[in-house]
């Protein structure tokens, strides 16, 4: 039953993202038009509180549920991969109006055409895996 807690976190995540409207294409469009604070408020408050939480975990050396040390590995240093990859991701995000989390959540809301986006995203990841050694990182 060790997977049950992950199932519940996923359910909670799905509900929050629908109820916050963060899964809405329109909200993403509005965000990139700088016409509402809504999405900035969601991401901003999540990060602010998240930074406090992570700081607390590190400072108090909080153990995980299994009693192990909590590791938050730093990301590798680079500019090219994050910038180029980020731009490509952003182009797709604003067109589909959905990033990898919302894709699944929206499928659950009954939008079955999202399966095409998920399949194409899986193909995109596969293409990256094939081309990885040829790309600047």
């Amino acid at each position, binding site marked *: 039953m060790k*997977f049950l*807690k*992950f*199932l*519940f976190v*996923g*359910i*909670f*995540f*799905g509900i*929050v*993202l*629908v*109820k*916050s*409207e963060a899964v809405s*294409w*329109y909200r993403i469009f*509005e965000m*990139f*038009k700088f016409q*509402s*604070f809504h999405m900035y*408020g969601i991401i901003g408050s*999540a990060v602010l509180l*998240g930074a406090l*939480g992570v700081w607390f*975990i590190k400072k108090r050396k*909080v153990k*995980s*549920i299994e009693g192990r040390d909590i590791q*938050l590995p730093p*990301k590798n240093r680079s500019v090219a991969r*994050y*910038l180029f990859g*980020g731009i*490509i*991701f952003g*182009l*797709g*995000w*604003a*067109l*589909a109006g959905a*990033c*990898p*989390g919302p894709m*699944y959540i*929206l*499928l659950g*809301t009954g939008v079955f055409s999202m399966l095409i986006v998920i*399949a*194409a995203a*899986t*193909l*995109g*990841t596969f293409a*990256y*895996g094939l081309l*990885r050694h040829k790309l600047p990182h």
Partner: protein
Amino acid sequence: MDCILQPWPWYVSGPLITTVMLLLIYFGKTFGMSSNLRTLCSIGGAGKYADFFRFDWKAQRWNLTVVLGAIIGGFIAVFFLSDQTPIDLNPQTVTDLSELGFKQVGQTLLPPEIYSWDTVLSVKGMAILIIAGFLVGFGTRYAGGCTSGHAITGLSNLQLPSLIAVIGFFIGGLVMTHFLLPLIF
């Protein structure tokens, strides 16, 4: 009950997303939804074609379970926890979208001009979804994360690479929204 059925304000939703991230850290994992796309590739046998997909995908079953939960969560939210309130968009956003040919803006989560089967089964509509999905899947793995991994977890952990990635997300998103969407629609 009304305040649950209505859309949730940002100052409730943001902290709840933090809760998701911190719970996963407490469970000894990290919040990152796009990793599942790589896992799906591995399950599908992509390891035969690239070493990138040769890893123990079974160690990622917890994350696939989160995905399953997210699908169920989306279902519950729409069918049991919503009162069909239209999205309270900026009137200027609605005007801008009307000029691009979008109708009934904000009545549903997604525009039928992109996601209805009538649109999807046209050549242009199908191309839009495939190109959009491909860019997301390629870009997120190249950048090493998506909104959950970089924007939420990475920034919370004060990672400079995540800030660069998020700046990239915004450059791409702004170019698509301001320059490309008016050409497409």
